[in-house]
């Protein structure tokens, strides 16, 4: 079972935060095919958010084929997210740790690193779509 949380400072729409958290859990393997997502009522009772927001997030996940609603039963995980295998993830994580240490030695602070990282992401994905 996944437990949602909200980050009010992120500026990310609430339904997208829920979508991201489900995807994150699918990547990490904490949610697996067949698992049931909490009902809208359960999420609402925990987070005091609009039930339509939860339904909107689930619709988005459904559209992407990640979950499926079964009438009267709930919403269930259909498939996990391919992405990198766990072993690849561990290796990439080690590279990233090494990079962060090097950046720190070079005198960069957290904000500098985040800026560099997001710039690299933006450039990289721009090349992809161009």
């Amino acid at each position: 079972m996944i437990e949602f949380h909200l980050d009010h400072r992120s500026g990310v729409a609430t339904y997208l935060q829920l979508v991201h958290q489900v995807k994150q859990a699918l990547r990490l393997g904490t949610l697996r095919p067949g698992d049931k997502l909490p009902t809208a009522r359960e999420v609402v009772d925990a987070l005091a958010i609009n039930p339509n927001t939860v339904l909107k997030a689930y619709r988005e996940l459904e559209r992407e084929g990640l979950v499926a609603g079964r009438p009267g039963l709930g919403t269930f995980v259909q498939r996990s997210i391919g992405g990198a295998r766990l072993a690849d993830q561990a290796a990439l994580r080690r590279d990233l740790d090494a990079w962060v240490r090097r950046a720190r030695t070079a005198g960069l602070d957290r904000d500098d690193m985040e800026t560099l990282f997001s710039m690299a992401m933006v450039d990289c994905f721009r090349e992809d779509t161009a």
Partner: protein
Amino acid sequence: MSVALRTTGLGVRYRRADALRDCSLAVPAGRIAALVGPNGAGKTTLLHVAVGLLTPTSGEVSVPGRVAFMAQDKPLYDTFTVAEMLAFGRRLNRVWDQEYATARLTGLGIPLDRRTARLSGGQQAQVALTVALARRPDLLVLDEPLANLDPLARHDVMRSLMVEVAEQPLTVLISSHVVADLRDTCDWLIVLGGGRVQVSGDVDDLLAEHLALTGPAELVDTPPAGTRVVEASRTGRQARLLVRGAPVLDPRWSARPVDLEELVMAYLRSPQASALPALAAVRA
């Protein structure tokens, strides 16, 4: 889309002053709509017209379903116990779900034999809300339901209201002058400024359509193509705009998304600006 509340060209005139002018809006069924605006903007007047307590000077209002209204200042009788408050509601309303009302209050841990004056502010709000909900409305109208509550009670009242919406088909219209209280709970936004509807629309759509821009001061009067300026200001060498419209490609502007509070404030500071659906959409 079925509509729970629609007003067309609504006007209300008190003595010589207009309280509302040409207000046209629609709230789709199943939404939780926030009615925001400064004190004196006409929020309570608009709600009173919506629930039929006040006849408009001009224009029309239509509410297809059953409506329940919770007035400001928790309308409870001090000398009544909670149970007597329910009995009173039962006698006054043709439709009344006593079983539901009792179960809801018991579930919230509110003693039915206690006088309402001896309840906490949060509990009083819950009793007033239960009296409104026991009428099994299609449209629930709440005038500043969170005013005078501490932050914990505000959260609890909103949370229990959201649970009600999750469990039954219900449209809610809530007025407030505190935008932060409505951030995660409302999916429809109506901004009322000076008796006029300035904004009416889906919250996520509105947030996606607006951008905050910063750029060199000399560009303050030449906003990027395809955008409409809601609010513009200049500080030293920098121009700041809040715009509605297309993504900005001009590299001299840097753009970031806006949050609900910024959006509302920008419109309220610019009374001439508005973001309303095309008339055809309002009529749909």
